[in-house]
């Protein structure tokens, strides 16, 4: 790879290589505040390479590669190299990480306790985490939450937050423009703009937090709170975990413990302000 960068996000050391300078330059800007230890061996490698050598010059498109390859990964135009890098990083962690149980969930922490939010794309879990992270919460991550299979603590994976579509305006108005990446319009996932987490969240990214509340948000529709039974939470989280099966009994033990020890609710909300209010209400009720 002609251009490369090493970035530590939570416990994962990435090496990202690219045939082009632009995606690496964009990553250098987004991840300037993260540890960049060039001597530490990489645990996940992402390569953005040209499909054919000559394609680097003619109508370039970025292909995602790395330790694991999804055969039908979308070839993305070079202008979306940053998105390709993000997708590659997600892919390597989702498929390769074994040290923790990985939940496809956002998380924020307060007073050493974690609020974990799991949901499909579009549920609002990312936006809620980003907005809470601008308040009195520490942003732990907008995409993945890592659970220590031995102790049960949650660990952060605070990559640059991937704001999509309406969430861009909802968050952009509240933060310093220097913390926003370039607007990438019309990607396969819609409009995307990255938000650099607050410096205190990056500085605290190795600090564990005890899971205290599990929420399954659903954006749209009326305001509702629905307590969720242990069995349903277990099923949903096995579906939300990318490495539950690979972890074997350690994953089973970690998940049963998390489900038993953590109160869980489904919430639906018509707008972000209501969503935040529901989160604060449930947090106060759960921890009193």
């Amino acid at each position, binding site marked *: 790879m002609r251009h490369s960068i090493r970035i530590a996000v939570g416990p994962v050391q990435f090496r990202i290589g690219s045939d082009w300078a632009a995606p690496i330059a964009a990553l250098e800007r987004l991840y300037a505040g993260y540890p960049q230890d060039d001597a530490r061996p990489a645990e996940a490698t992402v390569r953005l390479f040209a499909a054919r050598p000559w394609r680097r010059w003619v109508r370039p498109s970025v292909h995602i590669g790395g330790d694991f390859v999804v055969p039908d990964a979308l070839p993305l135009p070079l202008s979306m190299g940053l998105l390709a890098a993000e997708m590659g990083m997600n892919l390597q962690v989702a498929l390769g990480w074994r040290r923790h149980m990985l939940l496809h969930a956002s998380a924020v922490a307060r007073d050493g306790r974690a609020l974990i939010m799991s949901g499909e794309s579009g549920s609002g879990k990312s936006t809620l985490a980003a907005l809470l992270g601008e308040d009195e919460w520490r942003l732990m991550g907008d995409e993945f939450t890592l659970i220590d299979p031995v102790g049960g603590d949650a660990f952060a994976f605070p990559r640059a937050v991937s704001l999509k579509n309406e969430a861009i305006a909802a968050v952009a108005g509240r933060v310093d423009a220097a913390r926003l990446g370039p607007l990438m319009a019309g990607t396969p996932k819609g409009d995307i703009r990255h938000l650099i987490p607050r410096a205190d969240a990056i500085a605290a990214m190795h600090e564990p937090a005890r899971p205290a509340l599990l929420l399954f948000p659903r954006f749209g529709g009326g305001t509702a709170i629905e307590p969720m*039974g*242990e*069995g*349903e*939470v*277990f*099923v949903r989280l*096995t579906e939300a975990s990318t490495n*539950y*099966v690979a972890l*074997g*009994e350690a994953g*089973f*033990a970690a998940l*049963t413990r998390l*489900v*038993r020890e953590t109160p869980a609710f489904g919430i639906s909300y018509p707008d972000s302000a209501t969503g935040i209010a529901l989160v604060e209400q449930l947090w106060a009720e759960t921890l009193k």
Partner: protein
Amino acid sequence: MPDPAYRAAPPGALRVEPLGELTAIFDRRSMQTHLVVSPMPEILAALGAGDCDAATLTARLAESFDLGGADDATPIVAERLGELAAMGLVARA
């Protein structure tokens, strides 16, 4: 054809964790997770007392549970045993 006899999984093969209305069972041999509801956990526990057929197992269950008129419970228990065998959680003795 007489009712087949069944055998419980060897000690330590299954990790059984009740989770509210569901019971999660991790099979250490296959590394598979099974999610079951009542009466599956009760049947597994009762079979742990020794190999037996559905009629004997129904009698064992009736000692601890109200089966609501025991005359028609044996075919149901036999069917559940067949399902547990298909999941690999019990075996033909």
